[in-house]
Structures are given as structure tokens and as C-alpha cells.
């Protein structure tokens, strides 16, 4: 499976580079409307045609990939940091602190993920600027996605805090923050790394679900969710197979993350 992992990493790098360089690679802005050619077929000017508002679909795919590909890892990082704080401290301190924190985590985990997500999303304004909607969507994913990872981190931190080298560190006078920072956190890195990689594709899929339901990133800013929303116009899609490009890209990117993840999980 080594070649598959290398290919997955290479593909992710190419897609990331193309989306980061969207300002230079894309033939037009994601919001620019070519009013003369709405719903156009692919051509030299518009590689994937245009949407019903005349916007270049290739440009929108590039910019949308940038939004999803950059912000899902950012949300995953936020979730991993929260998990490290909550789970790490609970596992390190132990006793009633650990029991209370884990009970709160269990409560959080028992709430169905998408129900909780749309409930909290509904509390926040829906009619916001596109940039604010991006921040809200991914911050929500990060803030609500820590619980599963926190359990794993807590179990790991508990095991580490009872290990021989921590006992030795305690015996040589190391305690509190110093013990946590110098001995526990470095050893928690592999599990946090794995949790981060697990969260990235999960958040990408969650954003796509929210976007299709109209609760994600607001127009005209594209994301995979809003691009996939085009599939709703099913009466016109039979003659426009290029509309499936964002879907194929999503599948390949998420599969690539899964392939990278399988290898990353091994050392844990």
C-alpha cells in the first residue's frame, strides 16, 4: 500500500497547490458573471462550462477547493487542540476531574452530531456575509468535533501519567505544568496527529452536507457544499456530466485522506 499512500499524498499536494494558486490559475474570479453565456458547455474559455448565473465553473471549483481544503484542516486543528486540552488535562489530573470531564464528553457524544450542528448553526445568524459564513461553519465544526478525540486523548494521557518514565520524572522533582509540557505532551503527539487526520475528511463531508442543505458557506463564495448543491437541478444535469467534477474531486480527496490516514494510524 506504500505506492497508494505516495500517490494520495502527491494528489493532495497537487490539488492543494492548484487551489492555493487559484488567483493565478483560475481564468476568472469565482463571482464574475459572463452574462452572455449562462449554462455554457465546456470550451477553451470555460474548461468546465459556466453555471446558470454565467460564472466560470472551473474557477469556482478551484476557489471552492481552497475554502474546503484549507478550512477543514483548520477546523480539525481547532478540534484537536480542544481535545488535547480537555482530554490531556483530564487524563493527567485523573480522579474526580477526569470523571466529570468524561461524563461531559459522554453527554456531548450522545447528542447526534448533525442535529447538534444545525441546532447551534440556527442560533447564529443565517443571513451573513460569505466570509463570516465560512468562519462560522468551520469554527462550529471545530468547536463541536472535539469530543470523540478527547476520549482517546484522555485514555492515552491516563496511561502515560501512570507509566514508568513519568514516575521517574516525578521522583526527580518534575511536576505540574513542567511534567505535562515536557513529558506528557510530546508523547501525546502521535495520537493527536492521528485524530487530526481522522477529523479532516469528516469535516469536509460535514461541510458538504451543511452546504447542500443551505446551512453552510454563503453565496457567492464557493465551497464543495455549495458547488454540489448544483446537483439539485437534476432536470438539466443529464446533458451536463461536467457538473459532477466537484463530486469526483471530493471523493478522490477524501479517499486520499483515508489512504494517508491508514498509514498514520499504524504507529499509534
Amino acid at each position, binding site marked *: 500500500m506504500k505506492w497508494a499512500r505516495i500517490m494520495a499524498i502527491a494528489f493532495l499536494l497537487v490539488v492543494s497547490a492548484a487551489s492555493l494558486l487559484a488567483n493565478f490559475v483560475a481564468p476568472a474570479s469565482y463571482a464574475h458573471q459572463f452574462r452572455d453565456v449562462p449554462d455554457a458547455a465546456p470550451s477553451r474559455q470555460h474548461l468546465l462550462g459556466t453555471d446558470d448565473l454565467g460564472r466560470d465553473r472551473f474557477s469556482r471549483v478551484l476557489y471552492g477547493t481552497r475554502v474546503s481544503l484549507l478550512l477543514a484542516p483548520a477546523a480539525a486543528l481547532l478540534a484537536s487542540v480542544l481535545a488535547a486540552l480537555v482530554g490531556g488535562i483530564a487524563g493527567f489530573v485523573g480522579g474526580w476531574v477526569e470523571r466529570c470531564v468524561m461524563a461531559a464528553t*459522554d*453527554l456531548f457524544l*450522545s*447528542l*447526534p*452530531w*448533525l*442535529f*447538534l450542528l*444545525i*441546532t*447551534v*448553526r*440556527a*442560533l447564529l*445568524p*443565517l443571513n451573513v456575509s460569505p466570509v463570516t459564513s465560512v468562519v462560522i461553519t468551520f469554527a462550529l465544526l471545530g468547536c463541536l468535533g472535539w469530543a470523540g478525540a478527547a476520549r482517546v486523548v484522555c485514555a492515552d494521557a491516563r496511561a502515560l501519567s501512570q507509566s514508568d518514565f513519568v514516575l521517574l520524572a516525578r521522583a526527580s522533582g518534575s511536576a505540574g505544568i513542567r511534567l505535562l509540557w515536557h513529558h506528557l505532551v510530546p508523547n501525546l503527539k502521535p495520537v493527536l496527529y492521528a485524530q487530526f487526520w481522522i477529523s479532516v*475528511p469528516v469535516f469536509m*463531508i*460535514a461541510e*458538504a*452536507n451543511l452546504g*447542500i*442543505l*443551505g*446551512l453552510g458557506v454563503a453565496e457567492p463564495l464557493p465551497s464543495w457544499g455549495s458547488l*454540489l448543491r448544483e*446537483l*439539485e437541478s*437534476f432536470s438539466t*444535469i443529464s446533458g451536463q456530466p461536467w457538473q459532477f467534477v466537484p*463530486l469526483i474531486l*471530493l*471523493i478522490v480527496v*477524501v*479517499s486520499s485522506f*483515508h489512504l494517508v490516514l491508514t498509514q498514520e494510524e499504524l504507529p499509534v
Partner: protein
Amino acid sequence: MRGVLKLAAKILITVLLGGFLGATLVRLAPGFGVDEEELDPRLNQQSIVALRQAHAPESNLMVLYFHYLDRLLHGDLGISRTLQRPVRQLLVERFPETMKGVGLGLALGWTLGLGLAVATVMSRAWYLDLSAGILAGLLLCLPAAVLALLFVLAQAPARLILGLIVFPKVFRYSRNLLARSSALPHVLMARAKGLGNLRVLVWHILPTAAPQLLALAGVSVSVAFTAAIPVEALCDLPGIGQLAWKAALGRDVALLINLTMIVTLVTLVANSASDLMGNRFRRAEA
């Protein structure tokens, strides 16, 4: 009996804490304490003040929570702000539809997932393992909403979607679990003694994997309920998933919280039942 009581207490505490969290969210929701009647031009200032005073006690979170619990005990879940109908009535109408979909989805997902996992592990055929793995991997990469849209495009029966969402999770987990169980020394010994595949599976592999499979069954209920939102919203199935979506778009927080609490209760009961059965299996194995 002690285990059942412990789980019932856990469910009760979770529901009470969840209810408190819900009440907090309702209190913080935009528009809380504002009555549309205040906009009625026929009302004078005194009437508006009286209306505000009627809502004043509920601005205290604890009062709001205890009022909510009191109403809940009397079967009153409040009125949906967007649909202007009692939440209880909406649930009675829509819950059976979702339960039907979730039940069918779970049955299909488990039949396909466990069936393919058993076939893969018992046959040890690499092509079957590879093709089932690719199919499960592909379905894992598809958001539930996309799958729903594709089913709408293909005009396929929407009730099958939940099954396809549950299937890859069941397949991957149970395949790994069964493969690990089938490599245990007592299973190898049973094979060496000449026991048939079916007998090895039923008497030696499945009992070892049963507790974890039951835990997975509990988790799959939550997965199916979560996927019900996009599926029902996009395939126009009148269940609680669609209701939750409409409530989210209309920012009907009270309705959303009631729905979340009810789905949480159902998933908690399912998880607790699977935990209990799993523990029983473990004790019997020991």
C-alpha cells in the same frame, strides 16, 4: 438488574443535563422573550407592558428550565414558532416515518455489511475483499446529502439511502473484527479439527465478536438518525429529519432542541440496550 438501573440513571441524568443545555440555548436564541403580538397596532402601551411582564419570569434560566420540565412531564413540548403547531403533534405525525426509514436502513445496512464481511472473512477470496473494500470506501467518501441527490437524479427509492450510509461503517468494522476473531488460536484449532465453515462461524467466531458487534449496532442507530436529516430534506420524506432542517432554516430553536432531545433519547436507549446485551454476552463467554 443493577446494570439496568445504572443505565436508566445514566439516561435520566443525560436527559436532564441535555434539557438544561437545551433551555440555555433557547434562552440565548435570538428573539427570545419577544412576542409577535407586541407588533399588533391595536395594543396600547399598557398591554405591551403586560405582555412583557408575562414573559419576564422566563428570562431567568432556572425558571425557564423548570417550566420546561414541568410542561414536558405533562406531555407539552411547546409550539413550533415557524409552523405554528404543537411540537407534540408534529412529532406524532412525523416520527413513525423516520422510524420506518431508519429501521429499513439499519436492516439493509446490517444485512449487506455483515453479510459481505462474513463472506469476505470465511471465503478468504482476495477479489471479494478488494471489491467490497472499494465499494465501502467509495460510500464512506460520499456525504449523505450527495447520496440523496444522486438517488433523486436516478429516481431510485429514497428509503434505501440510509442502508447505503450504514453499510460501509458496518462492513469495515465487522470485517476487521471477524478477521481478528477468525485468527484466534481456538478458531484455528477448530478448523484443524475439521469443523465446517458454518459451524466455525456460528460457534466460534461470532460469539467472540458479538459484544463489539452489539456496540456497533448501538452506534449505527445514531448514524442512521443523523443521516436522516439530509436524506429526508432532499428526498422530500416527511420525517423528523426534514422537520429539523425546516426548523434550522426558520431558526426555530425550541423545535430543534426538542427534536435533538428526542433523537438523543432514542440513541441513548439503543446504545444502552446494546451495552446490556454485550455485557451479558461477555459474562456468558467468561
